[in-house]
């Protein structure tokens, strides 16, 4: 179980579609960055050993300095924006709506499908369905983050921010308050419980705590 535990807060061990595309993005970024780093290192080595003498300024400044980064960055920017667009909480009939209200130092969750139901530090969601979390705060700024499901989004007093999360499979996923919020910051955590279809129905009817 040790390896399972080690992954419980890991953004690179995704358990949902949003975290998965971001993890893929990361591996692409890592490979690209490594190649560029090796290229620059090799170039420095070459420059060091080259006997002195004039070189074409244009080659360094225009081709390497301007052309190379512009091409790479344009591709990267487009990739990032497309991924970002895909992760937005666009309206859809599939979506389950929940509320997350942060305070120093716990989380309270409410459910559009079960009015009046409130849970503390335990967020119930159905597995395999997109869930929109409406995030708010009653005191200072906090941030809602379930690393294995999606990126983070802040809870800002007076504002409601909506984050789309989704768990592929039923299970428990660790969540964190991810914006520094004072002396209780370390333990500002919660757990997301993803139910299968029956479990979710049972939860909405008040059968599971």
């Amino acid at each position: 179980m040790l390896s399972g535990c080690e992954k419980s807060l890991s953004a690179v061990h995704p358990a949902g579609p949003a975290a998965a595309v971001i993890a893929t993005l990361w591996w692409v970024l890592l490979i690209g960055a490594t190649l560029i780093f090796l290229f620059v290192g090799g170039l420095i080595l070459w420059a060091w050993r080259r006997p002195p003498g004039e070189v074409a300024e244009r080659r360094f400044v225009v081709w390497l300095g301007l052309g190379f980064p512009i091409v790479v960055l344009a591709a990267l920017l487009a990739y990032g924006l497309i991924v970002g667009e895909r992760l937005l909480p666009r309206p859809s009939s599939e979506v389950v709506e929940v509320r997350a209200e942060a305070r120093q130092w716990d989380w309270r969750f409410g459910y559009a499908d079960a009015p009046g139901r409130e849970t503390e530090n335990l967020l119930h969601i159905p597995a395999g369905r997109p869930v929109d979390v409406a995030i708010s705060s009653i005191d200072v700024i906090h941030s809602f983050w379930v690393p294995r499901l999606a990126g983070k989004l802040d809870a800002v007093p007076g504002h409601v921010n909506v984050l789309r999360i989704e768990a592929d499979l039923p299970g428990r996923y660790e969540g964190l308050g991810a914006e520094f919020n004072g002396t209780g910051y370390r333990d500002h955590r919660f757990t997301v419980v993803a139910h299968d279809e029956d479990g979710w129905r049972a939860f909405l009817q008040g059968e599971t705590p």
Partner: protein
Amino acid sequence: MADVKAVLRLSLPLGIWLASFSAVYGLHGLLCSSRWAAPPLGLSERALLIGAAIAAIAAQSLCLAVMWSPRWQDPDLSIRRVSLALAATALVAAIWTLVPATATASCI
């Protein structure tokens, strides 16, 4: 006045970019705020934003043309080259940073 002109040649091109970039971002904020009225003349938010982006790019092109024209060139060759490079950079910056207005979701 030669003094002020040299300083302007170096600071204006990207200064214009910064102003128009901030203005488009500000316009985006206004359009997404529920508090202010809907876009005028039946235009969509996106049409307005794209219009603003095009205006910014046009301003930047004009700036480049001015830097290019012999009447405005700096007597010092290096400064002339640097100001041209900056005007070109500013044009690229305007296009690059405002392109998202065409494609990304405006208010979510």
